[in-house]
Every structure is written in structure tokens, then in C-alpha cells.
């Protein structure tokens, strides 16, 4: 595909449809499976409610406990940084909101572009730091799988291509935008089949945990 405009139209049209299809199929199947399956039945007598503890855990697990923080402050801070950065750029950049509105009909106010731009830059730095950390930390290096690196690469390329397109570092723009969309499409396609699924399942998992503890009358 030599023509940038053709490339952009390919990514905005057929490839996007394909990506969305794979993503929706995979993700819906996985979530439904989780929800319908539920947990393994717990036949013991409930010693407390499930809902409140479930919700509470969703919140409390989002903050690292002091022990974890002390042991691995870098993981906590940098991890937080780029997760938050990713969410902010994804959900509060105006062109993304326009895209989501076209898909789901939902819309909300966005952030000024320079703010999103800054957040993106911070996210990129944090992502690089994460990788360096993963490579230099002995234990972490040992436990890292190829999937970890694949996922890191996808996230990094996605954010980087967006940054390059917005700042017009790659030209012409249709090429830059097409590359960014292509990254997003690869991201969407692998999402349901890798640990990226946690974007959608993390809160379900936490709720399950909290609920399960709650039933046992334990606070998690």
C-alpha cells in the first residue's frame, strides 16, 4: 500500500471492522463465560454479605497496601502513572470521544489537547521505565514471559504512534493516523486473548474476591 490515503482508508474501514469484530467476539465470549460460570459454589453458610465487601475490594485493591508499597514503590508509582495516563488519553482525548460516540452513542467532555499531550508524554516515559525495570530486576526478568513483552510492545506502540501523529512528527498525517489506528486494531484483536483482558476483567475479579471474603465474614 504505497498511498497514505489508501492506507488510512483501509485502517479506518475494513481493518477497523475486522478488529472490532474479533475484539467483540472474544471479549463478549470471555466475559459471558466468566459471568455465567460464576464461581465455584460455596456451600458453606454465609457469614456476611457479598455485595458491599465486593465493592469495597474493587476500591481498596486499587491502592497498594503499605507493605507492597514499601517492598516495591517503583512498581506501584510507575504502574499507576502509566495506567492512569493510558486511561486519560484513551477516554478524554476529543477525537477518541468522537470515535466512542460513533460506536456506542455515549459522549462526555474531554480535556484540552495540551493536557492530553503532556499525559501521553509522561505515559511513554513511565512505560519505558517499566520495561527497563523489568529487564534489570533479576526476579522480574526471570518471571517475564514473551506475552509480557508482546503486550508491553503493543501498549507502547499504541501510545507512541498516537503521540507522533498528534505532534505531526510522522508525515503526511494520513500515514501517521493510519499507523496509530493500525496499532489500536492490533491491540483490540489481541486484547481478548492475552493478559490485556484484565482491562475488562480486573474489577470483576476484584469483586469476586471481595465478595468471597465477605461471605466468609473476612475483610479483604
Amino acid at each position: 500500500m504505497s498511498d497514505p490515503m489508501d492506507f488510512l482508508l483501509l485502517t479506518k474501514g475494513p481493518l477497523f471492522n475486522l478488529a472490532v469484530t474479533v475484539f467483540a467476539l472474544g471479549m463478549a465470549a470471555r466475559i459471558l463465560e466468566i459471568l455465567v460460570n460464576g464461581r465455584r459454589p460455596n456451600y458453606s453458610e454465609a457469614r456476611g454479605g457479598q455485595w458491599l465487601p465486593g465493592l469495597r475490594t474493587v476500591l481498596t485493591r486499587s491502592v497498594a497496601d503499605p507493605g507492597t508499597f514499601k517492598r516495591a514503590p517503583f512498581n506501584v508509582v510507575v504502574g499507576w502513572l502509566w495506567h492512569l495516563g493510558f486511561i486519560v488519553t484513551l477516554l478524554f482525548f476529543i477525537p477518541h470521544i468522537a470515535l466512542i460516540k460513533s460506536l456506542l452513542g455515549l459522549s462526555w467532555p474531554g480535556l484540552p489537547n495540551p493536557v492530553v499531550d503532556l499525559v501521553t508524554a509522561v505515559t511513554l516515559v513511565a512505560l519505558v521505565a517499566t520495561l527497563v525495570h523489568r529487564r534489570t530486576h533479576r526476579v522480574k526478568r526471570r518471571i517475564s514471559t514473551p506475552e509480557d513483552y508482546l503486550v508491553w510492545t503493543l501498549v507502547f506502540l499504541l501510545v507512541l504512534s498516537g503521540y507522533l501523529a498528534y505532534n505531526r512528527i510522522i508525515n503526511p498525517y494520513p500515514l501517521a493516523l493510519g499507523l496509530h489506528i493500525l496499532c489500536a486494531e492490533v491491540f483490540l484483536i489481541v486484547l481478548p486473548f492475552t493478559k490485556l483482558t484484565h482491562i475488562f476483567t480486573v474489577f470483576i475479579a476484584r469483586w469476586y474476591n471481595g465478595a468471597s471474603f465477605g461471605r466468609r465474614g473476612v475483610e479483604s
Partner: protein
Amino acid sequence: MRVFEKNPLEKGLAERLREHGVSRRGFLKFCAATASMMALPPAMIPAIAAALERARRPSVIWLSFQECTGCTESLTRSHAPTVEDLILDLISLDYHHTLQAAAGEAAEAAREQAMRDNHGQYLLIVDGSLPGPDANPGYSTIAGVSNYSMLMEAVEGAAAVIAVGTCAAFGGLPAAAPNPTGAVSVMDLVKDKPVVNVSGCPPVPMVITGVLAHFLTFGRLPELDEYHRPLAFFGQSIHDRCYRRPFYDKGLFAETFDDAGARAGWCLYRLGCKGPSTYNACATMRWNAGTSWPIEAGHPCLGCAEPRFWDAGGFYVPLSVPTGPASDYLLAAGAVGAVAGAVVATKARGRAKEEAAVRQPVTVEELEQKL
């Protein structure tokens, strides 16, 4: 590409102007306007003056194929140089359907004469796409001759070809899906001659005359981008040069026509503006002697200088929105996935239920008794 060698007796531009009573100051002013039109820095004015001193009128043959005459209309809106200055002083427009006096055989004879007299030296301008060599030649003919034959015959002796307008440059409207007449662009067919694409639907008038002036001044074509468009005019996107850009950066957008944002001149991105992906000179040169341009008049940029802009998504749909019915795919695939997931899960659950059915609950007391 020296085209000015033919008639050494012919006078240079400065001399011709002086004979019309135009002073040296007038000539310098003409050069200043020319520099501005060619998007060259004012420091170039002395060089332009020196070149124009010697410039002679090159022969220009203008072929119109599958077009709407919007490009010619646009040319007549040029105010520097004006179309009358252009055709009387700067070029010799030897064939042009809309403007020429001659018709029928006499018109074709004028074209053939100019092609013979200026062989290898004339500029060929084309507006409109044309049915390709594999399409039915009857889809577009002039004087009983197919557009394809006429183009190829005229290209043969041309010094260079300027494709004016998005149709000639990229196929444009006739080539929009499903391209009912098999329309192609000039560049699709002309491989052995330099081709300049002056895209736009229509192009900014000063961009057409700017390219002509460049050829006239320097005897060669300007520097081109990857689409063969002159960089001086197509080097930057509408978005980068848009006076509403600060609003884009601040996140201030018109949500509909005639809301408070629209009235205050906020960014038109959400109304579908294709400015970010469109490279053209509208934002700086503006239209109709600097009167306005589409975004200034409240309408999002259609992206008309880009290839395939007709098929690049709705004109009122934001640039970031996919062109296909992606939300339908999302819904359908989501539903299918959900069913599949549910079926798999239900099966698993069925097993769990079976197990639960044969389960024999025990209490602590029973357990203790058994033990």
C-alpha cells in the same frame, strides 16, 4: 526544460509591460505579488524580477475531459495575476474550450497548430479525469476522438503536464466508488513527462496561477511532494495553518452549526473537519481575493485536495470515526460472542449442576456422628 528558446524576437515581460505604460515600480510590485502568489519569501523578489525580465509567453494547451469547468471558473477568480493579464501578457493560451473564440474544426486546428509550432516546449494543462484505456472510449469524446487518444497525442510534444483539480490529479469525483466510467487520473497514464498535480475541488486560483508563474519565471516546475503537488502550497496541512487551531488545542469545539461555539469561531473538528489530513493553501491564501475560506465561513473542510476524499468518510463525521458501520459489527460480534461464551459456560455449569445434584450435604453434627 527550456521552453523559451523558440522565438528570440519575442520580448521579455518587463519590456512588454513597459510598452503598456507600466512603470518600473509597477513591475517590481508585480514581482512582489508574484512572489506572494508562489508562496516564496519576499527576499526572492530581486531574483524573480531578474527572471521575469527575460520571460517569454509559453504556449499553453488546456484540455478539458471529465470535468465540471469549476477549475476554469476558479482560474478566472485569480486576482494576482488576473486571468486577463495571464492570457494577454504571461502565457499564450492556445486551446481552452471555455475561453477560446474558435469552435469545431477551427478550434482543433488551433490546437494542432500550437502543438506543431511549440513541439517539445508547450505546457499541457489537463482538467478532469478521463476514461482509462480499458474503459469504453465513447464515455468521453471531443471531436469524435476519445479523451485517452487526445491526451496521449498531446502529451507527446509537451514539456510538462499540469493536472489541474482533483479529478485530473487523482481521478476525483468520476473515480469515486463505484467509478462507473472507469475514470483515471493523468498521472495514471503519463509516465514519461513531468507531471504536476494542482489538486483541490477546485484548486485555489492562486495556486494554479502560482504554478504557471513559477514555470514562467524559472523555466522549470516547482518542488513537489510525494503526490506531485507543489510543496510551496501543499507542504502544510489546513489544520496546521488554521486560525481556529488554538481552539482545537484548548478543547473548544462547535457541536453544531449555529451554536455558541460556532458563532465564536471554535474548532470544527467534531462537525467533521478534514483539515488535519488535508494539505492545501486555503488557510493562508484564502479564496476570492482573501475574502474568506470554507472554515472561516463556518463549514468544515471537505478535504478536497486529497486523493479519494470523496470516499474518505462522511463530510460531517469526525476524522477519527471509522468509515464503515463498525458499531454494527461491534454489536453483532458482541452478541455472537456473548452467546458463544454463554453456551460454553452453561455447559460447564451443567456439569457443576450435575455434581451439585448428587451432592449430599452434611452438617457438622452428622460429620461428627459418622466419625
